[in-house]
């Protein structure tokens, strides 16, 4: 068997979105992947299978999607930054354990390279159909962080951000690619260690008083320090509502307190979680608001429309959840019309309408059978409203 020859990585590479996720995760310090093969996400598993053992990390191909989710949570509790990757049907299977990770506050990243659903759907065609599955796919009220890249370079950048956010907030983070972004090849610049800001989870200081250790201690930032398994704290973790000691507590006050804390630890820090880019001029009357692969058509349409003196701007969400309500409300006050192209029957547009609250007209352009949204469709609508 011919063995691989190792070469130092070049900083500029031509690569696909799925591979950029692998590069971004490794750059952010991920040392563990567990998952199950699924189209169109399998290149992520293949990338980690190749790369992780080279740096002493671990790759596990599990028996099913559920086990993949469970194993990354276990690895994170053992002290490793961990990631899994799937597509819509697999994401559905991961939901219970994703809710468990939220409840027990374990940092993990779940990549969902979206394909057309429902069910087996169109496995090799792009979709943004899992936006609401990401938000509401689990039982109970709960927050989730979800980021959506619109290019290969952004896949790299947002994977680093996803890992950092999960570590910082002890919170699972979902990275929503779609088939086009996952398989698109573009040139990206891999960063050196010095160029990347890395956030590692807060750990308890020492195990001298491990008997008094509170694994879910109420701290000012509402994010309890997390102890690695094997570091002597001997603490308990349960998906039941629990008090600061981590032990089940069925009192309604405890359940409310815990749900409020889980909500507030994110909502007190939205400025650190919500990312977007925009280009809105003061005299623009319409804006195209988009995310993921739909943003590519949106931005290019606006750029050409401006050459023809159409008063249009663009707004690209990088963070989908929590939704950028304030920024979108501001946008609605600025323009008369917001156009929302999405590769679904209209999911995030509901949030846009809610945030706009009647201040701007919100119109969707939807493609949900595997086709991308064409710039001409957006252009036609822009001309109609302007």
């Amino acid at each position: 068997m011919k063995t691989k020859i190792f070469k130092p990585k070049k900083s500029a590479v031509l690569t696909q979105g799925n591979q950029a996720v692998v590069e971004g995760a490794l750059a952010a310090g991920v040392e563990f992947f567990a998952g199950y093969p699924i189209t169109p996400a399998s290149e992520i598993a293949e990338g980690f299978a190749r790369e992780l053992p080279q740096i002493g990390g671990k790759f596990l191909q599990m028996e099913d999607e559920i086990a993949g989710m469970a194993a990354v949570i276990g690895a994170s509790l053992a002290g490793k930054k961990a990631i899994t990757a799937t597509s819509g049907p697999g994401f559905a299977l991961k939901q219970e354990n994703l809710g468990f990770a939220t409840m027990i506050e374990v940092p993990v990243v779940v990549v969902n390279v979206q394909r057309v659903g429902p069910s087996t759907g169109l496995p090799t065609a792009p979709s943004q159909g899992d936006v609401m599955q990401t938000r509401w796919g689990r039982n109970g009220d709960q927050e989730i962080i979800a980021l959506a890249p619109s290019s290969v370079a952004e896949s790299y950048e947002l994977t680093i951000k996803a890992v950092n956010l999960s570590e910082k907030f002890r919170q699972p983070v979902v990275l929503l690619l779609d088939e086009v972004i996952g398989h698109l090849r573009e040139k990206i610049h891999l960063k050196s260690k010095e160029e990347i800001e890395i956030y590692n989870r807060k750990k308890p200081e020492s195990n001298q008083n491990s008997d008094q250790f509170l694994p879910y201690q109420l701290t000012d930032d509402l994010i309890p320090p997390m102890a690695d398994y094997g570091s002597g704290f001997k603490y308990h973790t349960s998906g039941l509502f629990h008090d600061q000691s981590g032990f089940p507590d069925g009192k309604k006050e405890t359940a409310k307190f815990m749900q409020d804390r889980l909500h507030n630890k994110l909502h007190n820090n939205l400025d650190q979680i919500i990312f977007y880019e925009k280009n809105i001029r003061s005299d623009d009357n319409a804006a195209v608001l988009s995310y993921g692969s739909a943003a590519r058509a949106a931005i290019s349409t606006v750029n050409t429309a401006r050459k023809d003196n159409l008063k249009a701007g663009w707004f690209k969400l990088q963070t989908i959840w929590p939704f950028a309500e304030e920024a979108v409300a501001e946008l609605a006050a600025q323009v008369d019309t917001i156009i929302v192209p999405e590769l679904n029957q209209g999911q995030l547009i509901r949030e846009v309408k809610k945030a706009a609250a009647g201040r701007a007209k919100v119109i969707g352009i939807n493609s949900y059978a595997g086709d991308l949204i064409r710039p001409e469709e957006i252009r036609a609508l822009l001309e109609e409203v302007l």
Partner: protein
Amino acid sequence: MDFEKYLRIDKLPHIWCPGCGHGTILNLFIRAFAESGLDQDKTVVISGIGCSGRATGYLNFDTLHTTHGRAIAFAAGVKMANPGLNVVVMTGDGDGSAIGGNHLIHAARRNIDLTVILFNNQIYGMTGGQFSPMTPTGDQATTAPYGNIDQNFDLAKLVEGAGGGFIARGATHDPRQLKKIYLAALKHKGFSFVESFSQCPVSYGRQNKAGDAVEMLKKQQEDTVSFKKWQELSFEEKQGKYPLGILKEVENPESEYTESYQKIIKKLKKEEAF
């Protein structure tokens, strides 16, 4: 025997019903662990959902009470991420033979170094007595009000088919043997599986008129036979009986999963050096 070292005394009394065998299993596990010489601080105990799932809350280790059926999958992640940890799974017959049966098969197949203790009380106890894949055919259960028509099966044979290296069965009526089995399982390098017969006089016993815990333990004794004796029984004599003891023990540390992966890492490092 310093039980206080291994138990979270302030979490007692436990929630198990009077006469339940799960406390016996917990007791014997602690005794075996104390004798094993393993480092308590480097041991993680992981459970699923149901009566057995609550065992982890009483044990003074790093403990994880997970989702239904998935304890072994979480344990695989913990062990793989840090092979220096001893990882024990406490799981029930619902967890291990129904909703999470797949994880049991594949952990055995991979020969990953986990110690799986399966509490088999032949019923879904916590939810009130629905039949599990371990409930004998013909028995009563709240979801089998006209008698159970499902066939129960031999979990030890399933694990053997999947390639498990250490397979044993013990029962709460013979605590001395069960403790010895736990000790051997903890020391085994590679995947180990101990089916532990437990009695449930409340959720199983009442609807099957099985009597109190003592009567159920007597029945358990009648239905089981030592593995040594078992091998001498005729086909007819074996029917309805279960062998107890270490049923299979193959030392094959070379094939242990985390070790095999470590070999890949080492090999790649060597190549990189060139």
